[in-house]
């Protein structure tokens, strides 16, 4: 599994259409046996490419057969690719606030790409952990972002209520939520 054989399509809705476009990610091209080599996938503009061999778990490279653990490894590699692509593109745009990878996401990706298959997360708990990674809704609210980017991985599930965006109120409210979370998990 690698970024070249995951296809993306717009999610289909009956009317009314959603406020934001949503997408489905489709796994294709099963049976990776033929891919244990180092051919590349290049994006349509030719600017980005990935080496397919880099997504294969180490135990498969030395002759093991496919497993869900090996797929989790590939998923971790895909996550790392997305994060670094994001950084590359934002560096070109000249933004500096894009650098941090949220601690909780980094932990997940590190665990997924462990060379020991037994140390990789089980797939079902992994989904809940990924779903728990809410992105702060208040883009200007540096309190929320500093929590999201910070070291306390349990705080990364904090979801800031977007309706709290009142003059002079939202930062204080976000801070109160952070303190509440600290009290609960601290």
């Amino acid at each position, binding site marked *: 599994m690698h970024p070249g054989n995951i296809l*993306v399509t717009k999610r289909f809705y009956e009317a009314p259409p959603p406020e934001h476009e949503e997408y489905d990610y489709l796994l294709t091209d099963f049976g990776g046996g033929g891919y244990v080599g180092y051919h590349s996938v*290049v994006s349509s*503009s030719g600017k980005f490419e990935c080496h397919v061999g880099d997504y294969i778990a180490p135990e498969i490279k030395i002759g093991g057969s496919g497993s869900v653990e090996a797929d989790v490894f590939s998923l971790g590699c895909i996550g790392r690719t997305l994060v670094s692509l994001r950084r590359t593109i934002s560096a070109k*745009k000249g933004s500096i606030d894009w650098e941090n990878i949220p601690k909780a996401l980094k932990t997940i990706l590190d665990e997924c790409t462990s060379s020991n298959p037994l140390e990789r997360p089980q797939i079902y708990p992994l989904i809940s952990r990924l779903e728990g990674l809410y992105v702060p809704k208040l883009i200007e609210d540096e309190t929320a972002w500093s929590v999201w980017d910070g070291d306390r991985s349990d705080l990364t599930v904090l979801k800031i209520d977007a309706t709290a965006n009142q003059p002079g109120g939202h930062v204080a409210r976000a801070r109160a939520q952070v303190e509440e979370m600290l009290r609960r998990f601290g």
Partner: protein
Amino acid sequence: MDFYGITELQVDEIGIIHLASNGFKSTEEKLFLVFERASEGNLLEFVEQHFINATREESWSIVIDALTCIASGLNDLDRRHLSHG
């Protein structure tokens, strides 16, 4: 991904598909598997397109949505005792 079926189409020497209705006289016919159309291309092409104009919030949402969606796809495979490879 939905699988719609198998079709037989006329193909010229360099592999371009021609519909029977345009009167093209084909040298050969080939069988094709017909799947659901993925409008945004592969993952690499998709994120390259979308990261350029995305805000910080949107771009992280793309990363997390993609990983969550792929993980649940792997979970579906696992429940059927399959691996992607």
